[in-house]
């Protein structure tokens, strides 16, 4: 007919990451999102200068379905 209801086709998976940025040297570190992360939250120590990094981004990235 003219239209059809979309089926349950294979969807690409969305992986969520947290990016921590050092406010002093600008070093960025990307890691997997953990519950409790939010933008502006204090993160771990900067691997470059040792200052406390801050969560600057949380985002989802699509990955192609396997198989």
């Amino acid at each position, binding site marked *: *007919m003219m239209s059809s209801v979309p089926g349950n086709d294979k969807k690409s998976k969305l992986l969520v990451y947290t990016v921590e940025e050092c406010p002093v040297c600008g070093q960025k570190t990307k890691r997997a999102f953990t519950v409790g992360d*939010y933008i502006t939250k204090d993160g771990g120590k900067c691997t470059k200068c040792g200052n406390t990094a801050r969560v600057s981004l949380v985002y989802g990235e699509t990955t192609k379905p396997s198989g």
Partner: protein
Amino acid sequence: MASFVAFFFYGTRLQTYNALREIGSGLNKLKVMKEKARKEAIDYMVNVGKAPSDPAQRVDQFLDYVTIMPVDIDPAGLVNKIDHVVTTNNDRVRAEVASLMSQSNPVNPVTVSISENLLEVATALNILHKVVRHFYLLGKKTNSYFTLIQLQMLMPMIIQEADAYLNAVDSFKVGQPIGDGIGAAVVSKYMVGKEKRVIAKDTVMAISEYKGRKLYVLKADGPMAYVGQPGVAIKKVVEEMGVKPTAIVMIDAALKLEGEKTGDIAEGVGAAIGGIGVEKYQIEEVATKNTIPLYAILVKQSILEAITVMRKEIAEASDKVVTVLNRVIEEKTKEGDDVVVAGIGNTLGVAQ
């Protein structure tokens, strides 16, 4: 020849059967989706909110709760009436959700705000299912070919929207920033480390500085899933604090058209804010009364991207938005001016 004759006489009936079959299949999907959203809301309240008793019965009452909009045959003062009704509803929902959890626990505002959002998703899916079922049964009962064909044509879009709502549940449950929060995410960069004050319900403001301009930066109070009251906040800055801004710059997510790229930035003028229209009215009112130019910066995204975890393309647009915002401030204002910068949208997972 026989099949041609059969189709000539029974074609409409065959198409009606086909439409009923397709709508029925979509309706089943909607039913599964609304049940899942309801269950997720209940599970969240029990597992995370530590509700002392089974909230299922109260949740079911929430799903059928109606907000009666004010009469519009006399439109004078209508926006204030809508604001009153909507605020009453929001306050009631929040108080009841909090009471479901607070009997043995201290109320966590993030958990309460997420529960509110989960209930909103479940309610939206419940309404969608009910409306589609209504027209399906009406078309079936009256054997109305045109009712069914119209519904059949709309079904892919309805299922797509329902799917977006259901996907939103996963992001809400774990407190991930959603695409709609890009405005809040951008202005949070200007607020971090500054003193914050509550300027309106669920809305905070910080004073910042950029190249000799004083910035009054505001957003909803994060990381809760709030949208705040930016209209009330801007009105307070201008009318109660006596600030005379040279410009109001608003940053918000905007729905893209098919073919447009996610994360594209558009500039414009006017109040960049969605919703029922109350906040937009308040901002336009204060801007017009005080002849303050309104500038808008929009980040394009689909409905699915707006209510699910922020996509990489949207998150990475935040640095570009900062560049655009700084340029707008430099071009439209001069040193010593006051500027209001408002980050609009749901601020889940975005503090300040």
